[in-house]
């Protein structure tokens, strides 16, 4: 029951989902429809599980008086605030409600800005770390510079051949290379899925008995 049963369920669910693709019969397709809803539900519950874990981590930090417990408190209070606004405010998530305002004016700016930091880091790395030390990295950097120029309006102005070269890079060498990677990664994904279904790969079960 502890190890074999979940493996069997995994095998049955996986096999059914794989095989139904080839069977248009309604009996199979009706079951398939139902199972799709189950999978969605499980994903939703698994997500909520993540929230519970988050609360546990920060609660422990506060209880054990970790150095940065003040920040953990910020996280937990923010979480409670959002849940409060979402569940107990009259118009819980319509546009313009406090719940939506918090999202649009707190979450959106912070997340959007975090990734824009990378523009600065790319620039500094461009100066200090991107080196054409080998034939490979030289090719890479030259192609990169052509594409960078070819995709901005000023590239068209400098020379009309730059956008043409950019297009060629994207549609020929880039296409061939990415197609190769796509096939390789696709095969890897399928092999992993197969091993999961067959119970060879069982990391998802975690440790213990």
């Amino acid at each position, binding site marked *: 029951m502890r190890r074999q049963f979940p493996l069997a369920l995994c095998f049955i669910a996986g096999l059914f989902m794989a095989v139904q693709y080839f069977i248009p019969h309604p009996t199979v397709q009706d079951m398939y429809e139902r199972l799709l809803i189950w999978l969605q539900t499980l994903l939703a519950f698994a997500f909520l599980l993540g929230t519970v874990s988050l609360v546990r981590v920060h609660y422990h930090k506060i209880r054990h008086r970790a150095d940065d417990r003040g920040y953990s408190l910020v996280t937990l209070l923010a979480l409670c605030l959002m849940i409060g606004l979402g569940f107990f405010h009259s118009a819980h998530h319509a546009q313009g409600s406090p719940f939506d305002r918090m999202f649009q004016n707190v979450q959106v700016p912070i*997340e959007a800005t975090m990734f824009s930091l990378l523009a600065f880091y790319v620039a500094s790395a461009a100066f200090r770390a991107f080196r054409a030390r080998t034939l490979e990295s030289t090719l890479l*950097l030259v192609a990169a510079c052509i594409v960078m120029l070819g995709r901005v309006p000023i590239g068209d102005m400098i020379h009309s051949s730059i956008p043409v070269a950019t297009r060629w890079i994207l549609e020929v060498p*880039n296409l061939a290379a990415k197609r190769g990677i796509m*096939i390789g990664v696709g095969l890897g994904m399928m092999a992993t899925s197969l091993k999961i279904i067959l119970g060879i790969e069982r990391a998802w079960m975690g440790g213990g008995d």
Partner: protein
Amino acid sequence: MATIIWTTIGAILTLSVYSFLYKDNPFYKFAEHLVVGISAGYYLVIYYFNFIQPNVVAPVFLLRIGNEAIGLGSSMWWLALIPGILGLLLYTRFFPKFGWVGRWSLGIYVGGYAGLGLSPIMQARVLNQIGANALPLTSITNVFLIVGLLGTLTYFFFSMKHKGVLGVLARVGIVFLMVGFGASFGYTVMSRVSLLIGRVSFLLHDWLHLI
């Protein structure tokens, strides 16, 4: 007025994150931890009202699936309960004694998703790509595409030593890969710069109304 205040809050948080460029500081850390809590709360509420409520709670308590009402008399009403129960089983992991029960749900979940992906991946990522690359040898471009793909696949072939013809093909593969990565590099830089432009536009346009 309310909008101005809210936009200012957004602007201050934006600047707090940028303060990280100077060095790590409490403002940045505050924003970082704040967003973890806010987003977790936001997602929780959205998950509940967009999915759990209409697709899980409503079918069980209001007894309908989609637009089809299913009364208690319907022979299938209990089926609507199963996904909810399986979902709740996942939470047994918080009780060490019954933690293993959660694996039943996990098994269906992991296996189901693994099975779903197989054929579409085979078709979309493998067969269609192979078919599209079986090109007539009538133009230089086609020859480039065929040789390029052949080289790339050879480079990622591990069952033989890269010697002789294989070695040459693998070298060709590397050249194609590097030009391809160059394109990714250029595009990634473009991406990051766009994000910065978006934030600057927010500060100058939406907040300060300078432009």
